[in-house]
């Protein structure tokens, strides 16, 4: 979770705590472009093939974490 928060904080400035229930768009303020770049960064870091993840279904930080845990091949 800490690493995911690090990735998120490369994109947005947040004073509020980021938790698993935080939504990427509404709570963290990610735009579509931000999300596309975030997924690219995270998938590259964890060795995840983009086609393995249904990113449309990811709304919260917890769902992002689950997608990483289910698909990562490194780290």
């Amino acid at each position, binding site marked *: 979770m800490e690493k995911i928060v690090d990735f998120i904080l490369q*994109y947005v*400035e947040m004073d509020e705590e980021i938790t698993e229930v935080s939504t990427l768009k*509404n709570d963290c303020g990610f735009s*579509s*472009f931000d999300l*596309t*770049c*975030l997924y*690219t960064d995270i998938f590259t870091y964890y060795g995840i093939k983009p086609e393995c993840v249904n990113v449309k279904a990811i709304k919260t930080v917890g769902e992002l974490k689950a997608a990483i845990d289910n698909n990562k091949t490194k780290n």
Partner: protein
Amino acid sequence: MVKKQLSDGNIVEAFPLTQAQRLMYFVYNSYGKNPAVLNIGTGCYWKGAFDTELLKQALYEAADRCESIRLRFSPDRQFGLVQYIADEHCIEITEHDHSAMSEEESFAILKGWTREGIDFIEKPLNTIRIMHLPDGYNGFYTKFHHLAFDGYAVKMFMADAMAIYLHKKIGSTYPKPMRSYTEAMKTELDYLESDQRKADRAYWMKTFSESGEPIFNDYLLDNRMKKEKESNPDRRYVLMFEGEHPESRTLHFDLSAEDSAKIIEMCRENNLSVPCVLMLGLRSALSAFNDNEKDVSFKFMINRRGTLLQKKSGGNRWHFYTLRTIVEDSLTFEEAAQIVEEEQNNVFNHCNFDTLEMYHIKHMAMKMDRLEQTYDSMSFSYHAPLEIPFESEEIKATAKGIWYNNDYSAQNLYLTVKHRLSDNGLEFIFEYRISENPKHDLEIFYSKLRSALMIGAENPKITIREILEKIKLEEN
């Protein structure tokens, strides 16, 4: 990085232009033909409490925090033009009192400043002025150079200056630091040698070789594609850009706060992206103007501001790409918006690639012989709301952000959609070249665009066919 000797004999660390800057410089040289094309004039004004001295201090501090405000350019034998960061921004903020003038008189002066070309060779580029306008408005005017700032960077500068001002005035939180332009620029230049660039190039080559030929969709009722087809029945593009006639005007439409909120709320409820829904409205209007064509293309601007380094480092990062969607009219508005978003995200994944090279690849694949031949009749950009802090809700309610068109455009038609500062309502600004005389057609075009958006906002399950039927019934 190169060591560059300037005309005054000083030696500086200089860098080639980034791809985004090269695009801007190319378009200016090829189709702009007037230095004012590269000027961005904007103002941020409000009524109510105002402290001139504190605002001046805040603007100086914001300028000190913004590295790209010190950006300068020098001609270079190897690279054509190189950029370097000067030690000082050399901005002198002056104060101008227009409070006794009429609004028209004041606006004309500010527009006149915006139209004055900037001598951008080895000189400071940017201007900041504190303004006292008619009708009790105060605030500041900025004129930035487009090789050093884009619209996003200007807005970020404004937000930073206002946050500093409010910190000084009412003790609100001091804004977090801005980021290094040099670092962001080096990342851009490093991309040119990267494997990602090779992968992006391969993506665009594959896309254009496999996607089939698009078709030009006109925004003029006197349809250029139809005329072209009279002599060349198989032709699907037209010759469009002209460098000789860059003079432009703007046509401005305000969507009410209530109607704008309906669109934004519908997007939130259905997990749709606001810019993608706006682009669906745009493609619906283009489709309606072109016999309900399903295959619609236009250029869209990507500001490429994802990470905080990209967002807070100023500079010009705009790339333009074609957004091409083929939408069957049996699909619902919601489904069509998802197709637009899917295609947008495909482009996002490869948008660091040089726009000019991408179009070159496209022209080769489509066997076109001139860059001025195009399938994209117009360009679109969406400016997401960027919170600019004000002292109170009451003051915010009077706030206005003004873009002073410099009356020269390197493009035939460029639609910008942005949010009003005061109520978050949507503004549609069509910047058009007067040589085409499109004003009457654009009024009809906007009416169809607006109707498509409102019909879709009321009922996202309605089909595209039904929307096109409804908007066709509106008088041309």
